[in-house]
């Protein structure tokens, strides 16, 4: 208290001098007077003067200097009274700097800080939102416990502020208050709950941050906001995205069941061997209920995907860890590309990303195998990056790539960076143990390194060789002899110790050399390192036991030396060994077993990755990087056995909704429900993602069910739902009045609604437009309603029906990505195909879709310019997985305007598709200038047949009938698999499923590169690495059903070759055979 009163007097003193100063119109003399009392305060006095002055510029100068002091870490706390007075300054820059000062020193000068509070309280009511926000910011940053109630009040008020910016600041203030006074937790949770409901993207990130800090265990607060957060995610600022994604990852792990198939390990593969496919199919269906992903789970996975394209490395990493931890294993593959992209970034980002890749690559090699070369080391990389890359290369090494890798390692071993060279040698050791085929090669290579000039390299090689030899108790006498010779030259203790241990362990295999080595060592015993001394003792003991005739005296001598060694470990060891091996009258029962003790079989050391044990930490976290549990780390829980009630996430606003929610998703066993389970719920979430704009879209569809061009545009709209929603908001913010916005929109919506069927009354439609989540639940309701109507009909029928049932988007019924798994009486052919596809992909975990080996530039004419009245269209197969749906083949269409006038409104008209075939059309093109050209992409699901897709390409004035017939080779997607897997799969596809032909052609056509080029030109297949030169293997899967398509070209003697195709889809197989045959035989 006394110090405070002092401060007060000082302050008033300051005030007086200031007045004096002003009267005298001189600012120098009073500070001079003060200088007499304390010379080092002189400068500060000068500052005080300036702060008291009338002129803003002087005050500003003073504040700037003070901030400079703070920045340097100098103490400026004594100026507190003078500064705090300026808190109410009109000049905004002074005010801001005063804030900076206050926040820094308020904790130290609590009583004085209270003087400023009233200013903030006033500012909290300011009409300018920036001022309100910054007042709240500073008020909450002043760490003075007395004002906790005031802060609490301010936060509560601000959380209801009209400005989202102020609400954002309120969310930040929550954390500050919580760290100041944890007692307030309950009250703060209420505020958090309220702010979580906020629909502004500005607030979302900050409030989730507060949630994570204050009450991360209150997962129940998230339920109702889950879908909203998922849908808003793309529009949230990047930092908020990171926090939300991390939180949602934890949430998903507690709320959904595991999408990872339990039996994707060996067990299943074995089954495949013994049972025919059909049996297996039945079996799997019997054994387990088909897993279907909760639509909310799917929603999260889908809505985070675009963020992989973010420029912010933290966001990409956050999405990557989300996919790693919660997506089905087959889908996690897409993150590798983005992570590899981050490796181009600065070294810090590289460091973290490489660490995470290292952990991932241990568990799922396949993910990063295609990017092997991206991990090659450059001589300019920092050592820490080099070693991490090496770690990943080791994890990725397998039979197929090891030879390339070893060649690469050879370059590294010679590196000037010796630490890195040593790490490479360890890596070679690990590869040698992991891949038995190359063990001998590696060992030989390491032995060669023993003659290296660099000691560190030699030493490291010795250590690794020791480990390798220990694992392979075969005769390696030569190597041991070679190493014994090295003892003369090598000085690194670890290496010397390793050699001695090795000789001791194998002393019976090198009976002549071992005693000699012991003799030499006895000579140099006193000058050796402790580590080496211990091994000399061991060697002595072992030799004494096996060859006591020659070494008895030597060992005794060494034991005597050890007895008087300075190190007590060595003295201990000496005493112990002497008692054990030298027979005397006192020796106990143990010495009988001495030989067993010393020459026991020792277990080989395990050479494993230092990243092995990191996987229990969530990826991308600080704890993972440090491999220590950091404070505040939140464990990722295991998947629940049974999913908690998913209906908690439903936002029940309208009464109608209640009718179905209880019977909703929770009950999967309901047969009618089951039928639609996957694809249906899929759609619901797609509905919800498109939210507001969706309503309009589907109505358009209904209005013009005949005119499918508009229908297609509405599809497009629902595709880009998030965006158009965003646009709406953008518009709205320009209007700036929230209320005005919703009013006008309501109006619009109502108009549109009234046009449509009366299935929902005006009430619900207005509710829909006012909130995302509500609209979502409503559309869910709608689709469910239609499902009831349709009942148990087959899928085709459903498609027809949809046209009648106006409320649904046509798009809704195209199963976009996941196939339908359901036992229903009447399955359409395409459904059966779906089933097959699904089962196949579950049984063979080895299959992963790769990138096309070769993309032929060949284009096909869709519409000639003569017949198209100036509009020319060419199409081409880019061989990329289709973005519109898993089962679609992507087709790129290039439209050219060769006429001399503008062509307007180019779109797809009526489609005449064979049964089951589906098509995703492109966005209509408003206009195409003369000589203009535009490329659009489409997706067509050809149902694995070469049937033509006919449709109309329409312009504003004309319609042209066009057709696309896919070459058989384009109905495939390349698959990457190893030779072993290939053979295994091939073994399962024999008999009926195999077609073959003999080809005769000139030998020069059978060079590996020619064969490769020819095959990939015809068909989109992936190359399988082959161990034999005369056999070429290619693998692919059909786009629609995912059936494997294995192509083997075996070159025979003379100029013949055997072409074999194994596939379940025998028709496609034989067509492909027919196509490949002439291509391969012609010159």
């Amino acid at each position: 208290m006394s110090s405070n009163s002092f401060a007060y007097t000082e302050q008033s003193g300051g005030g007086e001098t200031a007045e004096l100063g002003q009267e005298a119109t001189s600012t120098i003399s009073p500070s001079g007077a003060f200088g007499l009392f304390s010379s080092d305060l002189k400068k500060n006095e000068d500052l005080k003067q300036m702060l008291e002055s009338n002129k803003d510029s002087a005050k500003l100068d003073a504040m700037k200097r003070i901030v400079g002091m703070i920045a340097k870490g100098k103490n400026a706390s004594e100026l507190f009274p003078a500064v705090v007075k300026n808190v109410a300054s009109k000049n905004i820059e002074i005010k801001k700097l005063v804030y900076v000062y206050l926040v820094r020193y308020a904790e130290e000068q609590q009583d004085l800080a209270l003087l400023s509070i009233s200013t903030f309280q006033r500012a909290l009511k300011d009409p300018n939102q920036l001022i309100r926000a910054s007042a709240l910011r500073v008020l909450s940053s002043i760490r003075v416990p007395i004002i906790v109630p005031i802060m609490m009040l301010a936060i509560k008020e601000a959380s209801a502020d009209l400005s989202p910016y102020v609400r954002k600041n309120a969310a930040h203030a929550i954390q500050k208050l919580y760290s100041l006074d944890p007692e307030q937790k309950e009250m703060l949770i209420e505020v958090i709950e309220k702010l979580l409901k906020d629909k502004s993207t500005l607030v979302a990130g900050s409030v989730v941050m507060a949630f994570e800090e204050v009450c991360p265990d209150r997962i129940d607060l998230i339920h109702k906001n889950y879908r909203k957060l998922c849908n808003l995610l793309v529009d949230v600022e990047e930092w908020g995205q990171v926090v939300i994604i991390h939180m949602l990852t934890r949430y998903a792990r507690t709320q959904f069941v595991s999408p990872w198939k339990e039996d994707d390990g060996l067990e299943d593969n074995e089954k495949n061997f013994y049972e025919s496919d059909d049996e297996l199919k039945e079996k799997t269906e019997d054994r387990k209920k088909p897993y279907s992903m909760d639509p909310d789970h799917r929603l999260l996975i889908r809505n985070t995907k675009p963020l992989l394209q973010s420029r912010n490395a933290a966001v990409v990493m956050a999405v990557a860890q989300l996919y790693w931890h919660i997506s089905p294993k087959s889908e996690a593959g897409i993150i590798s590309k983005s992570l590899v992209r981050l490796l181009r970034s600065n070294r810090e980002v590289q460091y973290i990303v490489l660490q995470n890749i290292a952990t991932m690559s241990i568990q799922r090699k396949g993910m990063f195998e295609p990017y092997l070369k991206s991990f090659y080391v450059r001589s300019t990389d920092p050592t820490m990056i080099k070693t991490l890359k090496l770690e990943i290369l080791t994890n990725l090494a397998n039979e197929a790539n090891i030879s390339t890798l070893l060649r690469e390692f050879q370059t590294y071993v010679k590196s000037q960076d010796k630490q890195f060279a040593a790490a490479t040698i360890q890596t070679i050791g690990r590869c040698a143990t992991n891949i038995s085929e190359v063990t001998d090669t590696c060992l030989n290579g390491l032995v060669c390194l023993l003659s290296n000039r660099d000691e560190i390299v030699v030493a490291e090689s010795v250590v690794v060789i020791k480990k390798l030899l220990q694992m392979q108790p075969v005769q390696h006498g030569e190597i041991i002899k070679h190493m014994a010779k090295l003892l003369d030259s090598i000085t690194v203790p670890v290496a010397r110790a390793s050699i001695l241990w090795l000789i001791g362990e194998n002393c019976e295999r090198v009976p002549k050399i071992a005693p000699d080595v012991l003799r030499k060592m006895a000579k140099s015993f006193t000058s050796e390192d402790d580590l080496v001394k211990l091994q000399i003792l061991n060697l002595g003991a072992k030799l004494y036991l096996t060859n006591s005739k020659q070494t008895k005296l030597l060992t005794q001598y060494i034991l005597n030396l050890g007895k008087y060694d300075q190190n007590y470990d060595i003295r201990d060891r000496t005493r112990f060994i002497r008692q054990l091996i030298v027979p005397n009258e006192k020796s106990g029962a143990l010495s009988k077993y001495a030989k067993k003790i010393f020459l026991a079989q020792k277990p080989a050391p395990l050479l494993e990755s230092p990243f092995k044990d990191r996987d229990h930490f969530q990826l991308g976290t600080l704890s993972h990087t440090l491999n220590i549990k950091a404070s505040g780390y939140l464990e990722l829980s295991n998947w629940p056995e049974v999913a908690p009630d998913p209906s908690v996430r439903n936002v029940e606003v309208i009464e109608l909704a209640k009718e179905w929610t209880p019977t909703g998703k929770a009950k999967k066993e309901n047969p009618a429900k089951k039928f639609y389970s996957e694809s249906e719920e899929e759609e619901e979430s797609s509905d919800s993602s498109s939210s507001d704009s969706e309503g309009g879209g589907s109505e358009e569809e209904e209005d013009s069910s005949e005119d499918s061009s508009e229908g297609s545009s509405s599809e497009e709209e629902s595709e880009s739902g998030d965006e158009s929603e965003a646009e709406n908001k953008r518009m709205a913010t320009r209007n700036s009045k929230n209320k005005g916005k919703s009013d006008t929109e309501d109006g619009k919506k109502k108009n549109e609604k009234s046009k449509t069927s009366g299935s929902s009354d005006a009430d619900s439609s207005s509710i829909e437009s006012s909130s995302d989540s509500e609209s979502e639940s409503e559309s869910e309701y709608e689709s469910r309603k239609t499902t009831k109507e349709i009942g148990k009909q087959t899928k085709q029928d459903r498609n027809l029906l949809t046209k009648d049932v106006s409320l649904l988007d046509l798009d809704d019924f195209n199963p976009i990505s996941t196939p339908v798994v359901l036992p229903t009486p009447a399955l359409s052919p395409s459904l059966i195909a779906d089933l097959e596809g699904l089962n196949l992909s579950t049984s063979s975990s080895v299959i992963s879709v790769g990138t096309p080996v070769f993309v032929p530039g060949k284009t096909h004419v869709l519409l000639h310019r003569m017949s198209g009245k100036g509009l020319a269209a060419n199409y081409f197969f880019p061989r990329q997985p289709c973005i519109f749906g898993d089962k679609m083949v992507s087709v790129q269409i290039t439209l050219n305007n060769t006429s001399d006038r503008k062509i307007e409104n180019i779109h797809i008209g009526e489609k005449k598709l064979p049964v089951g075939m589906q098509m995703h059309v492109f966005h209509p093109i408003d206009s195409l200038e003369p000589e203009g050209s535009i490329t659009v992409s489409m997706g067509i699901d050809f149902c694995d047949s070469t049937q033509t897709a006919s449709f109309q390409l329409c312009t504003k004035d004309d319609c042209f009938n066009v057709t696309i017939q896919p070459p058989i080779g384009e109905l495939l997607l390349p698959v990457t698999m190893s030779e072993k897997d290939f053979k295994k799969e091939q073994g399962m596809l024999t008999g009926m499923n195999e077609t073959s032909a003999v080809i005769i052609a000139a030998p020069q056509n059978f060079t590996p590169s020619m064969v490769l080029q020819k095959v990939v030109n015809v068909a989109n297949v992936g190359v399988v690495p082959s161990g034999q030169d005369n056999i070429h293997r290619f693998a692919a899967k059909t786009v629609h059903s995912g059936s494997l398509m294995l192509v083997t070209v075996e070159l025979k003697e003379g100029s013949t070759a055997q072409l074999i195709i194994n596939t379940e889809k025998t028709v496609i197989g034989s067509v492909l055979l027919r196509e490949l045959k002439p291509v391969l035989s012609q010159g």
Partner: protein
Amino acid sequence: MIHSLFLINCSGDIFLEKHWKSVVSQSVCDYFFEAQEKAADVENVPPVISTPHHYLISIYQDKLFFVSVIQTEVPPLFVIEFLHRVADTFQDYFGECSEAAIKDNVVIVYELLEEMLDNGFPLATESNILKELIKPPTILRSVVNSITGSSNVGDTLPTGQLSNIPWRRAGVKYTNNEAYFDVVEEIDAIIDKSGSTVFAEIQGVIDACIKLSGMPDLSLSFMNPRLLDDVSFHPCIRFKRWESERVLSFIPPDGNFRLISYRVSSQNLVAIPVYVKHSISFKENSSCGRFDITIGPKQNMGKTIEGITVTVHMPKVVLNMNLTPTQGSYTFDPVTKVLTWDVGKITPQKLPSLKGLVNLQSGAPKPEENPSLNIQFKIQQLAISGLKVNRLDMYGEKYKPFKGVKYVTKAGKFQVRT
């Protein structure tokens, strides 16, 4: 999240500190100095360090260390990315991110840091918003301010902050409306001893400089968008449009920014524009060696290759080098053992070469590995991947903007092993 920030220069002085929560003593940096000492090289200082009470996450940029103090679990990339954003903002404001610039503008730095983080959580990091809140220093403005007494600090909330396009400020006006795009591609490659390519890929960026009035809505399309294998976007780009049509559609920020960065997959063949013939040898038991390299054009698409520089980190035993270049000039730094040869342009008639003797430390064993050559070059008016911008359309505004696209190909991490 982020508790405090310390800026440290190369000689280990802490010249700026900022705390967002309660004050953390400077002594926490001792752990950092310790790690720095252990690492020997600045490049090798681990970015994440654990201390008894805090965690230190640091970045090294422009010869400065940005050391942040963390107390609880946070994704490390979050902090790293943010620190880089801070450094970039300084660069943007002061033209350089150096100790001198930061010290000169310490007040602005402090104001910026105050706006960028609130309680350790990022608040405003978009350059457009920050510039509305705190105006960058210019000579003219400081003169005007000193006369009129107006301040550098904005007093209204930037419009962008509230909208869904936080990256663009409102009320932008230009007399000449211009939009420029630079397509810059870098070739990353490792070429082995025999001249065959071990690894090559193309990394590209499109940097934009947009000076357009109002709220223009641009769409940029390519002749061959499917070339782009993997793309990352500025937040302004509408992802769905790209997914469905491969068109970049966006409302741009004002000024300079990076629109996209992309990678052209290594599966496509990458044209390597230069080749290097080299013969570097060190004689056994002798204190000298030979050095001879020649550079020539390979697949250069008929364009001139210019700005060639060869950098070689020679082994430690090299004392000095006596070389003669047929073109350009070379320097050898005997301390860092770095040889730099500034070649300039390649004229196919006479290929540039550099040959001569290398003096080794006598008595030391000869180096077992030849050094690898790092090569820099530049090719104007060429995007090596063949990427071509088709057209740029503008909607939402009436005026006709001036548009321009420039292509450049450069060497990225281009290394030749010898």
